[in-house]
């Protein structure tokens, strides 16, 4: 009689323990599986790279298609504006007669300093910092942003 009464809680304990263990194991497995989707190594160009020496850039605006960047030069002052539209990430075109950037995807227009002037783009184009590498090349860090009107003077 008393033996029987003892057995019930033990069974109950094992049952609950077993179920909890299964659920925990499933969650751990699912978590691990999902983690596999987050890349740990990126096979893409680094976000900080050399773009060339100051003399490579003429007065005015130069577009670097492989980096999707505009390099501005006025005399000794340089700055870098991203060509990636802030709406849905298409690449903008520079219109030299209007002195504006046009996005061909949904028609956003940005002024020369990157401010969003028209269309669906919700934010201005990003500005990125410049620095010098020891070999005299410019280095751009697209992982960082700087305030508008930042200027790198050589």
């Amino acid at each position, binding site marked *: 009689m008393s033996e029987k009464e003892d057995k019930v809680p033990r069974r109950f304990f094992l049952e609950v323990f077993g179920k909890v263990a299964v659920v925990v194991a499933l969650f751990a497995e699912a978590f691990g599986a999902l983690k596999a*989707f*987050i*890349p740990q190594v*990126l*096979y*893409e160009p680094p*976000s900080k790279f050399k773009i060339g020496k100051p003399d490579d850039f003429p007065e005015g605006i130069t*577009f670097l*298609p*492989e980096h*999707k960047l505009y390099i501005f030069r006025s005399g000794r002052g340089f700055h870098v504006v991203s060509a990636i539209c*802030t*709406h*849905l*990430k*298409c*690449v903008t*075109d*520079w219109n030299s007669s209007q002195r504006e950037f*046009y*996005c*061909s*995807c*949904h*028609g956003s227009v940005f002024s020369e300093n990157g401010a*969003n002037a028209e*269309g*669906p*783009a*919700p*934010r201005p184009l990003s500005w990125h910092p410049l620095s010098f590498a020891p070999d005299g090349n410019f280095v751009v860090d697209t992982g960082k942003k700087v305030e508008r009107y930042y200027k790198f003077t050589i």
Partner: protein
Amino acid sequence: MKERLLLLWRNLTWTWAPDSNRQASEAVVKNFWLHWFPSRISLRGLGWGFSFWLGTISACLFVILALTGLLLLFVYIPSIRDAYWSMKDIDNVVVFGWLLRSQHRWAAQLMVAVVFFHLVRVFFTAAYRDQRVWNWYIGIALFVLTIFLSFSGYVLPWDQLAYWALTIATGIAAELPFFGEDIRFALLGGNILGQSSLIRFFVLHNFFLPALVVILFALHMWRIRKDGGLACMDRLIHETKSKKIPVSPTKTYSLLGVTEGTTIQAATTEILDESNSVRTSPNLTRRIALVLLVTTIATLVLALAFPVGLEEPANPAVTPIPAKAPWYFLWLQELTAITTIKIGGKSISGGLIGGIIIPGILGLLAVVWPFLDRSPKEAIGVWFHKTRNTQNIVFTIICLAVISLIIIGVYMRGPYWKFYWPWQSWPEMPTLF
């Protein structure tokens, strides 16, 4: 000899032209391929005019897509360097490759449209009520899967269309608050579109999404049986019961004789007799074969008449002018382009409002609609029942709004997404920066 061959055929397949009711039901019950069908089918459900067979056409399109896709899989190379050129080879070198590819692409476009019209049919016949609400939900999932399947396929050729459609679509995903950037990162397998993005969409397209479709499709069919057939059966049960035909006490084959009483399946089998139904084999099976045949011919003719092309190879530096998503996404692209709002100095991106919030609301509406629907039971299984006029109008307006946005996106948006009437010509555009 002929007898023997016939017997062999019957053992391998089914009793094609059964001599008795018993043979007819055995033909279904004892056959692996047919066991998911009832042994008798109501004339109403079999008719062309109730369901327009849109669900069957969707399934046939899926079969065609799976077969043509499987063949393409042998010659397609999922690498960003080779994908485009393997597509070129499919078009120009592989014998009948262009036909396979065109048929695959046409079937994919048709499938999105047909699945949508199937949903519209279900709505107008109030076939999503009560026990059928599960199939409504499974159907919504199948619709979303169909669109994702089609989109992930669109990415595979890695041409300009693919590259910029993927840019825009993952740009929309990135607008989701909090997790957006992480989701984009996981979808692309990095910060930029590259090899890891292509392989992800390749696996999604060729294994993950089709497998989900197959599983959900099986559930979809099983639910139809559980729910007592198509919605028009509810009317039949109602009308027959009101004529007070006594239920035969000797009938035992309801649910294969396992159960009795008034489950919906029992009610269904009880009222089906010679006057309102026919044997599934060969009446239903023949029709399904006919629908498959016609669907195959239609996709073949479209593929022969309008072989599909390729754009330029993907070029990350040059966005084509204009860059458009596939047509079934253009209503979203249109919304993302026109819904950016500015409050004070802050802007809320159209990517969030038009790309996530508005479609999210539509999805939510589809989920709660069965519970908002207060029309009487008599409306179930009837096209445009008069008690449903208001909700039918609301639904039609939503559908027409989506369709008009698609038409505007396809025909009236030119360079820089500017509005042009179809008869206005677009200005000359420089092709490169």
